[in-house]
């Protein structure tokens, strides 16, 4: 299991970025979760990622579990960094 804290950055082009995030997560075999205060969201689910909007600007934890977990966490962190 690998995890890292990231700041949610979905303020521009929100819908497209959410869809991108889901397909990016879908490229990995690992289970990827994004967790905030009282939520744990499956990063491969568009509906889950939609609820991320309420965390915009907040810090959440990306957790991946599986064979490519390090790459997965890195990719998601990079996604939020730009």
């Amino acid at each position: 299991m690998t995890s890292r804290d990231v700041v949610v950055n979905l303020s521009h082009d929100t819908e497209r970025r959410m869809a991108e995030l889901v397909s990016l997560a879908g490229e990995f075999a690992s289970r990827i979760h994004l967790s905030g205060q009282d939520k744990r969201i499956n990063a491969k689910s568009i509906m889950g990622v939609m609820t991320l909007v309420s965390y915009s600007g907040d810090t959440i934890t990306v957790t991946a579990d599986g064979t490519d977990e390090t790459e997965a966490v890195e990719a998601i962190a990079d996604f939020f960094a730009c």
Partner: protein
Amino acid sequence: MPTTNLNQEATVANLCERMNMDNLTPEIEISTRKIPTYSLNRPSLQLTGFFKGFAGGRIQLIGYAEQVYLDTLEKPVIIERFEKIASYDEIPCIIFTRGYHPCDGIMEICRAHQLPVLVSPLSTSETISEMTRWLRVVLAPRTTIHGVLVDVYGEGVLITGDSGIGKSEAALELVKRGHRLVSDDVVEIRKVSDETLVGLAPEMTRDFIELRGIGIINVRAMFGFEAVKQSQNIDMIVNLEEYKKEKKFDRLGLEDNYKEILGNKIRIHNIPIRPGRNIAIIVESAAVNNRAKKMGYSAPEEFFKRVNAEMKM
């Protein structure tokens, strides 16, 4: 009585509105004032001047007995005791039941300490029970789960399984067969008691289903209000798994398996999935079977009774 909105926060303002109480201190901000616990305190002992063990972080409720006692006290004594009560600055609010309006001295103290004063029109025990019930629901421990919640014949069925296994498709077919969707993909779960878990959709995704290859569809717009539901008790879990030869699946249904969510045990069925299997019908049957079990009927038990009867002959 208004229905309980599960998304409400336990603030003094929401409590005041929910209980139809009069706010005697409208100048004090109550919409951000949180109530930390559903337990409350009737400060009878404190009114007599005994403050050891005082639960000063809870709502203080002045009921009939306390009101009768207050009326026997001299004004300086009342002032002294309330001054002491109000000095505990973690009290969310103070409530007088039966429409009792406190004297000016008490009001002055509460205003000075920024302590909201509410008046409930109900009797003391009605106020306590209704308030506790509401607070237990809005303060319930909560979590979110990746899955789909559908009301099938009145049974709340939580369908779980890995991404892409067909949970949403199963939900859509169940809706087409006349059942109701509560939430797709993300289910917020509240533990309202040791027996009961309530599931609902996050406001953002309510009524929506995502179908791979088609996108997001609105179930309420497509199938009407009869196809959706706001919240539902969770009675059972159907976990969809890819069929694997080496994995053993339940063949008889004699033993119940459970999964723990927020400390409550929920009956779970692991269903192997292969292309072409009609998941909706399996979920329907599992729901009816669960209802039958609750009503005291168990098909495998009857089956074994027959087997045993046959053997004795």
